[in-house]
């Protein structure tokens, strides 16, 4: 739809610029408690912003609508640990999700220290 708006469809451009992008970022803000979901969406936002001038212009003009993404990235540099779920707002996945998180929890280099602590019962 964004591509269609970019390519010159007035209907799509009007809806995307005036309504959909705003709604989209509201939705992203409401789902910001799910780490992996946010990572995928933020990747997509960056990719589309680089590729589509319509999205880029909208983001330049409405910086306040997506500024929460920067705050979120600063607050969540690493995936949350399951043991800390009780204390934290951020969860790895949505409830009842069957997604494997082992790539983050055990195999990723960025979690090496946390894995070490867990294996040695330090946390």
């Amino acid at each position: 739809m964004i591509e269609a708006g970019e390519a010159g469809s007035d209907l799509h451009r009007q809806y995307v610029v005036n309504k959909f992008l705003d709604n989209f970022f509201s939705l992203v803000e409401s789902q910001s408690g799910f780490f992996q979901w946010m990572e995928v969406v933020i990747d997509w936002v960056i990719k589309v912003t680089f590729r589509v001038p319509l999205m880029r212009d909208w983001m330049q003009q409405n910086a306040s609508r997506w500024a929460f993404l920067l705050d979120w990235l600063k607050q969540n540099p690493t995936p949350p640990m399951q043991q800390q779920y009780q204390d934290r707002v951020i969860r790895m996945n949505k409830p009842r999700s069957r997604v494997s998180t082992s790539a983050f929890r055990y195999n990723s280099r960025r979690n090496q220290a946390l894995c070490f602590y867990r294996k040695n019962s330090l946390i």
Partner: protein
Amino acid sequence: MGLPTPEDPNVKKSTLAIVKEKDRLAKLMTDRPQYMYLIETVASLVRCCTVDAPAQLAPAPGEPSTLYSIPDLGFRLSQDNLVLFNPDVQFITNLFMHAHKARAAVALSKAYVHYFFYDEAGVKKLFKIVRTGLEECDNDRIRPFLILF
């Protein structure tokens, strides 16, 4: 049993070929067929259909009617086909949710954007699909909805 007799490779191959052909026919009769390119085929067919454009937005003669149209064959979706192609939001959401491969999601997205290119209600419906999918799915299933958006 005696000494092993030399085998005729041609005979063996032909026997194997017959067995394989029998298996293939049996699978066609019993198993669920693998519709590898069904979604892409349907999407291409939809993109060949004529889309009604309002007079002020009508493309010039010779130009494609929408961004994703491929040469117009002059057909329109009948009511029976529309029931299948354009059901309620939840059904289309499920369709996108199960489009695991990116090429299927891209094909579906192009078909729907082509079909609703000049339809205001349709555009809203597509965004509702995106919204529903993003709300309901986790990170492994949201890519098709992002592709549609």
